[in-house]
């Protein structure tokens, strides 16, 4: 019997798991995919928002400001990249200026620190590559960037190191209310638990409905992105937003914590919760709008394009409540979900207490996780010490990002271990450079095959069905 089963291993489920792993609770995280961070967490703008967007008094406003305050320390503890690069909402017209003023007021009400409206001259000094047509901007020094899947992997890894259990490929099919506890069922397995936290992202409405809560729905909103080579990462230093509209914050241009340049997202409401396909129209829109902001973006340096689905709830705010005793929703977590995640986790713990859970701090709790990129960022002498102990750190596998065999093996061996090519990619950046795995993927398949003890052809790109090879030559 578990104390708590968290459904969904995205950034919300992950941060909740990590927060709860500090207490004396038997925890399990149930995830339907072959890895953690596979939904909205995998593909978003990676922004820690300052908190001036949300309507004052909303949960979004409260949790965003609190979350972004907590984020630096959490990133530090978990060894996750975090860069307080500041953000700019740029305006091109007097109408935009009015919106910017309103955002400023709203930000101040929400308690965002350091907000300032800057005029063109100062703005061009901050960001010389901005369009000449820019008029003014809202400058938010507390805006930051991080890496959402790295944060999630680290949070769940840390929770696991502190005793939490992770069930992958566990798609919840049914939740049965028993006498004082729940049964969470997949096709293959049953988990018994006293409490459930629903952090199932796009599917959180479906999960809530399993216990009879049909008070909200969640629909997918497509967001496509184009990522550019590290050579372009210095084009801007702040995160550049346009003045927002009903559909979101428009196309942004931002450096990433890994030094690339990210542009996007589009914003299109769709029906299919699995449809993460990109579109030609989407690409055209990103390129056109991003160039309005920063005209010299060299799109011939594109490395990849991708698409994520935001989980847009029907209530307009985050949905955090307990519709049934012992069942807690952390649902409808759209933007600023990443920024709010640490505060959502705190709040979920509060709700859990209200439901009668006893949260006793665990003495053995260790909040620190060694950074996944520790080797990469070490000095030569330090690296050589590590190579002496384990020579696989001397062997480069991914040449574009200079990732060693040792780092890849560690990503497979460390909680939550990589199980497929994409899992290795998200943990190490191997295959994420210019050649996109062209050179190194056959080698990484071999490492996965050996480490996991499975045949070469059983290694997948991203879980069941995504096979890379169909079998041996001469035999198929």
């Amino acid at each position: 019997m578990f104390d708590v089963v968290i459904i969904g291993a995205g950034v919300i489920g992950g941060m909740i798991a990590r927060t709860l792993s500090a207490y004396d609770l038997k925890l399990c995280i149930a995830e339907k995919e072959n890895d953690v961070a596979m939904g909205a967490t995998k593909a978003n703008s990676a922004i820690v928002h300052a908190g001036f967007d949300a309507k004052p008094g909303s949960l979004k406003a409260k949790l965003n400001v609190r979350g972004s305050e907590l984020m630096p320390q959490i990133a530090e503890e978990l060894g996750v990249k975090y860069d307080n690069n500041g953000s700019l909402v740029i305006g091109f017209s007097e109408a935009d200026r009015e919106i910017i003023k309103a955002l400023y007021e709203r930000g101040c009400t929400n308690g965002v620190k350091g907000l300032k409206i800057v005029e063109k001259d100062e703005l061009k000094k901050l960001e010389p590559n901005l369009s000449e047509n820019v008029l003014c901007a809202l400058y938010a020094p507390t805006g930051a960037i991080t890496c959402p899947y790295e944060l999630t992997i680290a949070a769940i890894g840390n929770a696991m190191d502190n005793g939490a259990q992770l069930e992958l490929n566990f798609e919840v099919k049914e939740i049965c209310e028993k006498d004082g506890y729940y049964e969470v069922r997949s096709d293959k397995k049953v988990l018994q638990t006293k409490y459930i936290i629903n952090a199932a992202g796009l599917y959180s409405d479906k999960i809530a409905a399993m216990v009879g809560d049909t008070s909200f729905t969640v629909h997918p909103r497509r967001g496509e992105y184009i990522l550019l080579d590290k050579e372009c990462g210095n084009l801007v230093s702040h995160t550049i937003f346009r003045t927002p509209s009903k559909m979101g914050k428009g196309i942004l241009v931002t450096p990433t914590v890994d030094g690339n340049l990210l542009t996007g997202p589009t914003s299109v409401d769709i029906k299919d919760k699995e449809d993460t396909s990109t579109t030609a129209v989407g690409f055209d829109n990103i390129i056109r709008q991003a160039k309005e902001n920063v005209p010299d973006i060299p799109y011939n340096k594109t490395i990849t394009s991708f698409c994520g689905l935001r989980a847009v709830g029907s209530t307009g705010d985050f949905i955090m409540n307990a519709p049934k005793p012992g069942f807690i929703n952390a649902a409808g977590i759209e933007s600023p979900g990443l920024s709010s995640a640490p505060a959502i986790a705190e709040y979920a713990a509060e709700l859990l207490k209200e439901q009668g859970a006893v949260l006793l701090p665990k003495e053995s709790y260790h909040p620190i996780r060694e950074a996944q990129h520790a080797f990469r960022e070490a000095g030569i002498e330090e690296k050589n010490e590590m190579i002496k102990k384990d020579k696989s750190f001397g062997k480069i596998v991914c040449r574009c990002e200079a990732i060693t065999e040792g780092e890849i093996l560690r990503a497979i061996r460390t909680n939550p271990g990589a199980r497929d090519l994409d899992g290795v990619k998200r943990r190490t950046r191997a295959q994420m450079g210019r050649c996109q795995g062209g050179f190194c993927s056959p080698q990484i398949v071999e490492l996965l095959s050996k480490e996991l003890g499975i045949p070469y052809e059983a290694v997948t790109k991203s879980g069941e069905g995504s096979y890379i090879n169909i079998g041996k030559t001469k035999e198929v």
Partner: protein
Amino acid sequence: MTDLVIIGGGPAGMSAATAAYECGIRDILILERDENLGGILQQCIHNGFGLHNFGEELTGPEYAWKYEQKVRELGIPFKLNTMVLDITEDKIITATNEEEGIFQIQAKAIVLAMGCRERAKGALNIAGTRPAGIYSAGTAQKYVNMKGYMPGKEVVILGSGDIGLIMARRMTLEGAKVKAVCELMPYSGGLARNIQQCLVDFDIPLLLSHTVVEVHGKERVTGVTIAKVDENRRPIEETKQYISCDTLLLSVGLIPENELSKRAGISLDHITNGAVVDQDRETEVEGIFACGNVLHVHDLVDFVSQEAAIAGKSAAAYIQGTCKKGAAITLKTDGKIRYTVPQKITANKDVNVYFRVADVFRDVRINVYKGEEIIFSKKKAKAAPGEMESIVLKKDLLEGAEELRFALED
């Protein structure tokens, strides 16, 4: 201190090493990232290599072995499984391997011979899903030829570069069905012989002016939508058609791998994506030379070896202090000729100039201008982007020139 460090033990690196040795340099070190010498040739198991340099048709590994034997006979040292991480302008090389860890070498001269990489799918912005089953042709070649695994059984190939054509035949022989090769341009980027022996021989259709507009399939590719493109290379809506397949191979161009060159402060030619060099293949950083596919993408390995021999000899002369350079003559192009290698001439000697054209041209002249004067002219029945051209400029033609302009004219 090492006299000459060669980055890359493929056909270029080995040829540069043996050439430098033959010029009297003994303190040479080749650094190779793979577990064998030979570079990408080890996976190019088809034949067609070596006709120029050895007068016979060799497979890739056989061609590489010819040079490897020479390297071994001469006792030129090399380190395998060794990746160069950094090169500075002062010629300090930082490299890593399992046995030595990270180490540094101060070189008197460096030859860059790192080769090229394939343009990846991500760079193309193809709409649709991102399932397993999409490979660059060279990656599929590695799976099939080196690892012995089949990436899929129903294949569509985007791009008609030579590796794509070679893989069409290779996968077919191993039992896969190649349904089509789509080429965005109205002409193929591959050699005519490869279209014959890799496609026509197996009834594989080559669809010119076609591209893949959408990828389908969630976990694994289940099909692609292709379309004809107009003269601006935009897909024509009415021509869209769906082809079911489990594999999409890409053969859409090669890019010299110059990340290290950039770190050393070497300026690059934005057309070739390789270093700007003179006739000696010396870059703008003194004592650093470049050759082979890291300098510009070649069609034939024979020419890679020849170019590398120039770089190796020049590096030897640089080390021995016997290299004399004069004022630079800049080579300019008219756009129809896209680039030249070398991009400048700094010595008064006969120079072989290599170049590529931007489109398919028939019945044209290659004219070289010194000011208004045509100093060289050659007729050409056909010139195509897929085939590298070359001319020899005699040294007496160069005298007094500051700039030469290469033009393709009727």
